[in-house]
């Protein structure tokens, strides 16, 4: 049962990705007809067209005639390493289950924390958002004090290096600009 669920979830995300390509390709293809200059429209129209055709073929894969289905779906490679070696190419996961923390899959929580970091950076500047992000990350994943200190210190060294050496305006944030 968990296998079936995992496969279904994988199919859903794959379909979502294909739909994203299809919608984006169609929208950008349609928009080329609003361009004033025909030379500006040609290249994006061709590439968007390729995305639309490719996405439709992949979405409709199971309804295609067998020879075309092979062309669309069959993995191909001219430099395929022997099957017996395949397993060593990727480190094996410890378990089939996706790791979770506080009931949230780690990849989702990690991406959520990244989005929070971006939003906070936009509001108060990367320089001030970075310590907040590192502490929030360490708290969420239950890191030890030592690990938290390592992450915090390394991250601060990085942003201060950018701030002083590259002279990047990392302290600029929408809220701080508004306040000052």
């Amino acid at each position, binding site marked *: 049962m968990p296998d079936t669920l995992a496969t279904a979830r*994988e199919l859903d995300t*794959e379909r979502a*990705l294909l739909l994203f390509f299809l919608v984006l390709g169609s929208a*950008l293809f349609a928009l080329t007809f609003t*361009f*004033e*200059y025909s*030379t*500006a429209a*040609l*290249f*994006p129209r061709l*590439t*968007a067209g*390729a*995305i639309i055709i*490719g996405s439709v073929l*992949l979405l409709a894969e199971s309804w295609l005639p067998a020879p075309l289905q*092979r*062309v*669309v779906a*069959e*993995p*191909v*490679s*001219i*430099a395929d*390493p*022997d099957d017996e*070696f395949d397993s*060593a*190419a*990727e*480190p094996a996961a*410890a378990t089939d289950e996706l*790791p979770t923390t506080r009931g949230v*899959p780690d*990849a989702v929580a*990690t*991406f959520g924390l*990244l*989005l929070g*970091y*971006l939003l906070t*950076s*936009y509001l108060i500047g990367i320089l001030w958002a*970075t310590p907040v992000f*590192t502490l929030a*990350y*360490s708290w969420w*994943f239950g890191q030890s004090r030592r*690990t938290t200190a390592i992450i915090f210190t390394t*991250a601060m060294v*990085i942003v201060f290096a*950018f701030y002083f050496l*590259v002279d*990047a*305006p*990392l302290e*600029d944030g929408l809220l701080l600009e508004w306040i000052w």
Partner: protein
Amino acid sequence: MSALNALIDGIGIALSWPTLLWLVLGVTLGIIIGAIPGLGPNLGMAVVLPLTLPLGGTNGIILLVGIYSGSMYGGSVAAILLNVPGTAAAAATTFDGYPLSRQGKAMLALSASAFSSATAGFMTIVALILISPILITVVLLFGSPEYFLIAILGLSMITIVAQGSIVKGLVAGAFGLLISTIGVAQQSPEVRYAFGYVELYDGLDFVAAILGIFAVAEMLKLATERGSIAKQSIDASGTPTEGVRAALGRRVLLVKSAFIGMFIGSIPGAGAAVSNFVAYSEAIRSSKNPDGFGSGDLDGVIAAESSNNGTVGGSLIPALSFGIPGSGATAVLLGGLLMHGLNPGPELFTTELSFTYAVFVSLFIGNIIILVVGLSLITRMEYLTRVDTQVLIPIVFVLAVSGAYILRTNWIDVLTVALFGIIGYYMFAHNYSIVAFILGMVLGDIAEENFLRSLEIADGSFLIFVGSWPSRMLVALTLLVLAGPFLKSALERSDESAG
């Protein structure tokens, strides 16, 4: 400037200060990045890419090339000590490297790996310098139609060399090309897909997209592999010289594997991830004792490690000559070249020839650094494999976000990192070629420029793309490359049914 003068200039640049310092730093960083499981040259080079902005073109590219070369050796450390390849390029090293480690011969395997990596690097870079005059002649034969066609050929090759559906590969490549069209058009003042946002007039920065794809997406992938890296104590007794002596005793294997790596690296899309398996298979095929492979035969380590460092020189051929990367790492390198205003192709082999030779010479010197650092730090390598990869996630995020912001101090670039991080994560998960996408995005401007210029020359006629013999050859090659795998499987099926 003659090739010889350019080579002498190149040697001068590579040995000048602070270029040499950036090279030493790059190679050392590469060894560290390669040795930490979960990282690798793609990610390491991607996060360093924005930091090279203040260094200028030559130093920045030499730093990146150093990371690329160093990480090829570094990848073997975790492969030998933990059975976890630090990079895909060291996957075949695990087969015999880890059993050697279990037998208490980790020092032998690591030192043989360092010596094989460095020697293979030396030989293939010398070969690259020797064949460069021929490369220059070929590159200068090509005009606008041919450059557009070679971008299409490169995309096609990448989609079929990378395992997976060919249609997925082409969709990924076309997606990259389409994204590159955002902003002010090439040959007209048309603003495309900016929706009124001035920040989008210059388009999406490909360096930010690279950071999203290689830094954020890789870290999200790593977040799903929590706890997968083994922790165990390693017996690293012995001396480094025994590995060097053992590798020297296998000269034929070393040379053969190095050039297998160089040849495979020169095929667009086929990087060290492929060459190490091919060299390993060839080592088994030609061995007098094939049964010993997989249980601690040093030949397996030497074959895999010579080939992956040999790939570095080979992969620079299509990347620098035609702007077609052989792997994710060379795609990032290509991004670095363009970021520093260096266009791959004729420019690198005419006006910028000294720079090109400086890169080659730096790679040569880089191999000395691999040997020195590799052998002197051999007893400390174990510590690198013990870095908790989960600690790296927030640090890589900070590097990616800060790095993206300093590109143009444009929040669109920071958003691009997150957006392409999530898109890249799902593209990885569903076997869409990431290299094809990056290639499309990095080469989009050049491809469109050459495409439009060709049509302009031919008054809008598409026949210009079959108007010369190099063009016709490139079209035929592209068709052959796309149809090849299907013809092969059709032939196999007919053989099976006949049998």
